[in-house]
Every structure is written in structure tokens, then in C-alpha cells.
């Protein structure tokens, strides 16, 4: 293995599987001049696409920010309702999956099929774990009556008589339940949109996994893994911002229920 350094180094390339033209000419699409151009085009294309994703989520974040600025107290209360521990756990899960994805890209570049498949599988497992934890969160919110448009009755004392005190506190503080509802709308929409992108990412990783196990990416054609990795990391970055914005608005107070 090479020395630990931050500069570009070249690791040893093991025998590829199956044996093929090492320069990868057979992978060159007809309209490109050479592999370097194709590679650069693919990377730039994925980055340009990521720019569109950033702008889309950015618009959503902007709308959220406007309402949070307008209803700071309501948003703090709303943030209390969602489970910070599950959110933190999910953040950890995603960060690990980012690592495993980066390692998968690394393995593909080094043409190590076994490691590539392992890391892709790990990424898949972690990704589904994220979705699973999110599903648990959402189910709980549904049962508590915190899902606007579908099951919104948290502040309805006829359904939840034990919430009377909270309703009173809201009224005392001059906060409208509708403002808290606005927070929940954004919570579900933002995590939902993120979740949809996660599922798209998971589909991509599954396809990669199947093809990787057939050796499609360890013969010099590691680009699809690399650009899928870029997509995966973006999903991670979006969550990195979502987590504090949604879960940590009012800070964390220990002693409450974790889930």
C-alpha cells in the first residue's frame, strides 16, 4: 500500500477480472475522442446535475427559512415533537454509508471486485436502515396525530385529551397551532423529498451491486460507480443540513422519550 499522504498516489492494480484491454478503449463511446475526455464529461455531467438538485432543495430550504424566521417559537415547539435521537442516529448511519460508498468507488478504481461488492452491499444496508428508522419516526408521528393533511389532531383535545396542557401553553405563548402545523408540513415534505432521493439512490446502488458482482466495473469501467457515489454523497450532504435545521431548532433537552 502507498504511504499516507494527501497527494495523488497510485496504488497497485491487481489483476482485473476478466482480462481486458487495460487502456479501456473498448469502453469508449463513439463520439468521444479518448477515455480522459469521456471521464471528465461524465464527472462534469453528474456535477451539473447535482447543481440542479442543490437548487431544488435550496428553494425548499429558502421557503422553510422564511417561515422559521416568521414563526420562531412555533418552529421550536414543532421541533420538540420530532425525535432528536432517531435523527442523530440517522445522521450517523448516513455518514457511515458515505464512507462505505467512497470505499466502494475506491475499490472499483483499484479493480477489486470482492471489496467493491462488499462496500456496495454495506451502503445498501445502511441506506435501508436509514429509510427504516425514518419509517418508524413517521409512523410514530402519524399515531401522535402530527401528520398534516393525513392525521393532524395533536392539538385536538377531543382526540388527545392528555394534550390539554400543551394546548393551553400554546395559547398562553400566543402561538397558533397552524404555525406548528406549518413546521410539520415542512418536516414531512423535506424529509419526504430527501427520502425519495434516497430511494432513487438505493435503486442505483442495487443496480450497481448486481452489475458489480458480474465484474462490470472492475475492468476499467469504474465511472458509473464514481458518479453514483457523487449522487450518494449529495444525499448525505442534504441530510447534514436537514438534521440541525429540523431536529435541533429548540435544542436538545435530555430526559424526554427517545422514541
Amino acid at each position, binding site marked *: 500500500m502507498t504511504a499516507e499522504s494527501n497527494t495523488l498516489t497510485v496504488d497497485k492494480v491487481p489483476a482485473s477480472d476478466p482480462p481486458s484491454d487495460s487502456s479501456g478503449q473498448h469502453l469508449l463511446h463513439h463520439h468521444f475522442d479518448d477515455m480522459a475526455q469521456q471521464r471528465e464529461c461524465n464527472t462534469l455531467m453528474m456535477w451539473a446535475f447535482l447543481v440542479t438538485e442543490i437548487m431544488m432543495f*435550496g428553494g425548499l430550504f429558502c421557503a422553510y427559512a422564511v417561515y422559521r424566521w416568521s414563526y420562531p417559537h412555533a418552529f421550536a415547539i414543532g421541533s420538540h415533537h420530532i425525535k432528536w435521537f432517531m435523527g442523530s442516529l440517522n445522521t450517523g448511519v448516513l*455518514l457511515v454509508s458515505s*464512507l462505505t460508498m467512497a470505499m466502494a468507488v475506491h475499490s472499483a478504481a483499484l479493480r477489486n471486485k470482492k471489496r467493491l461488492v462488499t462496500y456496495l452491499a454495506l451502503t445498501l444496508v445502511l441506506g435501508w436502515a436509514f429509510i427504516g428508522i425514518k419509517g418508524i419516526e413517521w409512523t410514530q408521528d402519524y399515531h401522535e396525530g402530527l401528520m398534516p393533511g393525513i392525521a393532524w389532531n395533536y392539538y385536538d383535545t377531543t382526540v388527545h385529551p392528555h394534550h390539554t396542557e400543551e394546548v393551553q401553553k400554546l395559547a398562553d405563548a400566543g402561538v397558533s397551532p397552524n404555525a406548528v402545523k406549518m413546521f410539520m408540513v415542512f418536516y414531512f415534505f423535506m424529509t419526504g423529498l430527501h427520502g425519495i432521493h434516497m430511494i432513487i439512490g438505493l435503486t442505483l446502488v442495487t443496480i450497481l451491486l448486481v452489475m458489480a458482482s458480474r465484474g462490470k466495473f472492475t475492468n476499467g469501467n469504474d465511472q458509473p460507480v464514481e458518479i453514483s457515489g457523487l449522487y450518494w454523497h449529495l444525499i448525505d450532504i442534504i441530510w447534514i443540513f436537514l438534521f440541525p435545521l429540523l431536529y435541533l431548532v429548540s435544542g436538545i433537552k435530555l430526559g424526554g422519550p427517545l422514541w
Partner: protein
Amino acid sequence: MQTAHESDLEVIESHHIIPVGVYMKVFGALMVLLVVTVLAAMEDFSVRLHWGPANIVIAMAIAIVKAALVILFFMHVRYSSRLTQFFAAIAFLFLGVMFFFTFGDYMSRNWIPQVSAFNITGR
């Protein structure tokens, strides 16, 4: 183990392979920052530092550092061409424009009392 061939090197040099150690260090930093985020949320800095928006600013600052680490190292931007780096930067620039002008509207509404009636919360 086979060593890299000339032609293999050609391919490899046209794209960067980052040593595993770098990935591990970045991952470690990310996990540490996650813990810091959670710990910071347990403390109310707006009271401590006598500055209202302190909490959100600190949380966002940590998030920006995390995102930067992922972008630079996991997404290889640190080792990419100038063009790729430019693409990565441009999105955040225009995002900034959107935030700036939109908030410019909202925050300046009550500078003129008659207009603040249009502000949903009166802020």
C-alpha cells in the same frame, strides 16, 4: 500481486485515487462533528453568548464544515479540475442570491409601517 502496467497508469492518472487513510481521517472528523452538533444542541448559546441567533449559527457552521469535508474528500473535489470545482461552487452562489433577495424582502417589510400589514406575522 501484479504491479501497475504503463497503460494501467495512463488510465489511473487520468483519474485520481485517494488513499484509504484520507477517507478514514475524514470519516473520523465527520463523526466527531456529529457528536459536537448534538452536544452543542444541548447547550443554549443564545443565552450564553447573549446573541439571539447563536444556536442556529453554530449549528449551521458545523454543518457547513461537515458538508465541505464530504465535498472536498469523498466527492474528490479537492483533487478535481478547476472546472469541476467551479461547478460545485456556483450552485451555492446562486442559492445565496435566492436567500439574500427573498430575505431582503421579508426583513425590510416593516421598515415602512404601512407595508408591514402585508407581513404574515407582523415581524
